[in-house]
């Protein structure tokens, strides 16, 4: 590859058939399945290096501009004219101080591969952990969902039921009032309220009686059961 680049100026002018080409160093003994492979060798644009009449600035004179005395320009001179430019080739490479700077810069901005791989791994682990945590949370919440849905539905049902009960109760009370007093009265009037409180008291008494009865029954039944057990 390098040789083909360096031989730019001496390339063959016309199309060259692979086997006959004298420039190529190795001769492929057999072409691809017997096919001839032609490679275009262009005549490249001539490199106008101006070797016959070079301009090499006078380093001592004051008239030459400053930029023609810099190291960068010297390198360009060498690149164009070669050793006839009169530049020490050792100047082409960076000096020790410059080299130190370059190394420091590289160390700061271009970490070695191992460091980068570690960083990449750390980042990936973090991202994975985050993703896992989120997915776990989502899964946990999804597991709770059926219960939450059921609860919500129950609540709604109960609320509805409550409303219905309330309505029914109010209608019953109205009917009671109607029965007792003989006319449809306003539920907000004091008489109605009195009636309501009376009904409530009666219901309380009834409940208390029921509770007492239940207790008595329970207290009666266990001794009877235990006596029955002991007897049998």
């Amino acid at each position, binding site marked *: *590859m*390098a*040789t*083909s*680049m*360096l031989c*730019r100026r001496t390339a063959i002018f016309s*199309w060259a058939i*692979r086997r006959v080409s004298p420039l190529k160093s190795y001769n*492929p*003994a*057999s072409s*691809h399945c017997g096919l001839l*492979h*032609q*490679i*275009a060798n262009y005549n490249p644009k001539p*490199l106008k*290096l101006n*070797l016959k009449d070079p301009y090499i600035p006078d380093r001592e004179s004051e008239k030459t501009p400053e930029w023609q005395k810099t190291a960068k320009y*010297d*390198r*360009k*001179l*060498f*690149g*164009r*004219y*070669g*050793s*006839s430019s009169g530049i020490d*080739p050792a100047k*082409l*490479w*960076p000096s*020790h101080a410059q*080299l130190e700077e*370059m*190394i420091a810069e*590289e160390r700061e901005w*271009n970490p*070695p*591969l191992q460091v*980068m*791989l570690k*960083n*990449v791994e750390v980042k990936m682990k973090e991202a994975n952990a985050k993703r896992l945590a989120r997915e776990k949370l989502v899964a946990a919440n999804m597991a709770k969902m059926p219960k939450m849905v059921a609860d919500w539905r129950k609540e709604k049902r109960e609320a509805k039921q409550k409303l219905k009960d309330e309505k029914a109760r109010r209608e019953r009370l109205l009917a009671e009032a109607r029965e007792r007093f003989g006319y449809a009265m306003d539920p907000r009037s004091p008489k109605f309220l009195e009636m309501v409180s009376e009904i409530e008291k009666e219901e309380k008494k009834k409940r208390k009686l029921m509770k007492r009865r239940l207790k008595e029954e329970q207290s009666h039944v266990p001794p009877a059961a235990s006596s029955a057990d002991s007897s049998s």
Partner: protein
Amino acid sequence: MSFTRKPGGKALDILQNLPRISLANLRPEPGTKKAEKKRGRGQHGGNRSGRGHKGERQRGNRPRLGFEGGQTPFYLAIPKYGYNEGHSRRAQYQPLTLNRLQYLIDLGRVDPTQPIDLTQLVNGRGVTIQPQKRDYGVQLVGEGAGIFAAKVNIEVQMASEEAIAAIERNGGMVTTGFYDPRSLAVLCKPVPFFISGQPIPKRMLPGEDMVPYYTDAANRGYLADPEKIQKARIALAQKYGYILPDISKDELFHMLSMIKDPRQIFFGLSPGWVVNMAEKKILKPTDDKLLQYYSS
């Protein structure tokens, strides 16, 4: 004597006796060049010369493109979203289809008997890379995978799975390598770089975001494990349903297995060398520190 005939015959005679070809002797094939149509000149194009009747149209005072007479124009009414945000900082990879690669090989612009590199593609004017415009190289695209039939050792900067499969199916090798912008400029235009007299720089490693790409064997990254690459080749062959040809038995095996060192820009040239075009010489540094730096 009467049997020997000059090859070419009368045509060759004519060619040899006619005068030199110059611009004065040439004319295009009749029917290839159609005369351009000039609008607004003459009898029915005259008068207003195709400009219309009065108003801004005729007087050439139309408002700017996109103006909708005062109504908020389309390009301002649509709200912005970050599609183009940071577009000038995104890496771009010039696509190279397998169709184009086959075309270049068939025309002989790219030599398949040598490793194909970005330099070879640029020399053959196959792709145009602008390193200054955030181009980071060339990406191999799978279009034309069906007709691709060339055994090549190609090095690109990115490659799609289909393209890798197509090349390996024909017994070739693909490698993806990273070139930082300075190295890319050197790679695309080597001769102006050599004329500038600088030592060949060493290639930098990719940034953290691209390291996973180039260390992955599935992408044939240049930093990946060779054994993993071999396994990936077999796996890809199984995935795409072709028999992986054994390139170790190939006559061009040495060429096909040529891979660049991660710090190397050119085959056969190391970082730190100075190539002089005027005298056709290569200068190598001898200083220890320099050698250590360039070989790190």
